[in-house]
């Protein structure tokens, strides 16, 4: 089989065909990258080249959203106002979680001014990646799910969920605000050179979906569908990310047009072999080496065995991108991530 480059591998897998080797990519925490490189000055791009990963992820919240510093709280944590107007608290991990939404009442919506997706600085990072990797590694561009933006940043989780039952018109309005921004953002990213759109945002928890199928179809899936339809109109595929147990709603994600589903969450009882049997002929599977257990506390040998098992269950016939079950966060042992990538190259090569 002809040797492919990273971009070709990922595109081949997304098209449900068999590449020369099962491709891999992940968002990797800086501490892990530095430990593997033995160099705290190495860039993320250097790391991607060093491990010869097939794609690089641009995290939209980190690289393209604007934040206004608000100082620190009583526990010394950084607080910032995000571009949507929500107050975000950051952890040591650099994870930002909205503490106070932008919109407190329906009245706030009338005067709400959304962020401008066309500001040139948002796309500087993407341009750097395009300059370095275009054509040989997949530039996987994050786009936070409209459900996430509208729920967490605009209205706040509890208010959003309650409004789904009590005031659906408000949910429609905040969804529309987030969707209009994201559609323009995706357009701009594709204009610049994004190869894949990665729609990140959970629809499910460990036990199952956050909201009923009816509500997902009414409030959540239509925005995904619009983003996918636009990306497809430009020839760009979409990966939909959702942690949690999605057995009861995966068909909705597929019907919305997603080309791939990430991460087939093993902590929520998602077995990738079962996923392959149920929907592996319809979408590419992206996952699912356990980053809550094996990559954190397992041995190198256990990591290799798990990679082997993932590829055995889901690699045959193509349509698999082997990644962690979420991301390579700071708790992952650096040697385990290196072992994972090597094992993917070894067990994922020249599958029948």
């Amino acid at each position, binding site marked *: 089989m002809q040797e492919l480059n990273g971009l070709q591998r990922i595109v081949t897998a997304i098209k449900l065909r068999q590449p020369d080797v099962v491709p891999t990519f992940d968002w990797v925490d800086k501490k892990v990258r530095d430990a593997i490189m033995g160099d705290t000055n190495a860039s993320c791009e250097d790391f991607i080249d060093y491990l010869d990963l097939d794609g690089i992820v641009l995290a939209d919240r980190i690289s393209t959203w604007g934040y206004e510093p608000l100082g620190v709280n009583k526990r010394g944590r950084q607080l910032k106002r995000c571009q949507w107007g929500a107050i975000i608290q950051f952890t040591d991990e650099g994870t930002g979680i909205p503490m106070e939404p932008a919109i407190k009442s329906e009245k706030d919506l009338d005067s709400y001014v959304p962020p401008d997706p066309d500001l040139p600085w948002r796309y500087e990072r993407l341009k750097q990646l395009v300059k370095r990797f275009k054509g040989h590694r997949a530039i996987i561009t994050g786009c936070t799910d409209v459900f996430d933006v509208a729920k967490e940043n605009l209205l706040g989780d509890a208010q959003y969920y309650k409004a789904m039952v009590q005031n659906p018109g408000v949910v429609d309005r905040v969804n529309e605000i987030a969707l209009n921004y994201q559609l323009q953002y995706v357009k701009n990213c594709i204009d610049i050179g994004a190869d894949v759109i990665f729609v990140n945002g959970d629809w499910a928890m460990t036990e199952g979906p956050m909201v009923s199928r009816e509500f997902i179809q009414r409030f959540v899936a239509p925005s995904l569908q619009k983003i996918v339809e636009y990306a497809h109109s430009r020839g760009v595929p979409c990966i939909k990310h959702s942690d949690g147990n999605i057995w009861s709603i995966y068909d909705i994600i597929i019907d919305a047009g997603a080309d791939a589903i990430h991460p087939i969450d093993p902590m929520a009882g998602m077995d990738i072999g079962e996923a392959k049997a149920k929907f592996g002929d319809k979408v590419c599977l992206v996952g699912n080496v356990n980053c*809550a257990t094996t990559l954190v506390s397992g041995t190198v040998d256990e990591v290799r065995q798990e990679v082997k098992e993932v590829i055995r269950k889901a690699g045959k016939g193509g349509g698999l991108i082997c990644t962690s079950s979420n991301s390579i966060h700071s708790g992952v042992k650096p040697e385990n991530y290196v072992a994972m990538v090597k094992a993917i190259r070894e067990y994922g090569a020249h599958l029948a």
Partner: protein
Amino acid sequence: MALSSTDILDKVRDAVIQGDTKETVSGTNRALVAGLSANVILDKGIIPGLQEVGDLYGRGEYFLPELLISGDAALNALKLLEPLLSTSGTTSQGKFLIGTVEGDVHNIGKDIVLTMLKGNGWKVTDLGVDVPPEEFCSAIERGDFDILGLSSLLTTTMAKSVATIEGLKKAGLRGRVKIMVGGAPVTQEWADKIGADGYAKDAAMACKVAAVLLDKSQKEGRNAGT
């Protein structure tokens, strides 16, 4: 024809199940006017309603929106009942201290557990999110809590639940409270491993486990006293 006490309480229970705040509050008022005591309304109307909501959630028929609006309905009724509960000498189920561990700022899961516990008659103190072990220790030292609930939603912050339990041991406070853990990456096995007394996968289960732990704690207290 006037409604019977059972009918009045059933209406309160059904209104909680429907997440109908207006009807829950008016039903509670109707029950008070009919001469039912606050503790009867709580025990036979509000709590059975929330228990049914928990069961519906457990069976996958209710989801977060339904859980939240039912919780709201119960809390609004409780606002009416609470002053009467204290004057009629009724005690709450117990005292529950809750927080999301240090480094973790997720609050939705904790808040749903908190709402359901309150609705079930618990006195709940919320330390918020990103709570360091020493803050949990200090609160337990100052307060008189039956149960400490630790929420961690990230794999990277689960270790802080362990640090909190260790902190309580060092401070000689571990024996004062039962400890429950929960959150997406948390499992029963992990709870057992770190020496927690209970684990709950969701808010409905948290209410059931809390009741079991309180009962156990009270029996231990009685046994210790004999």
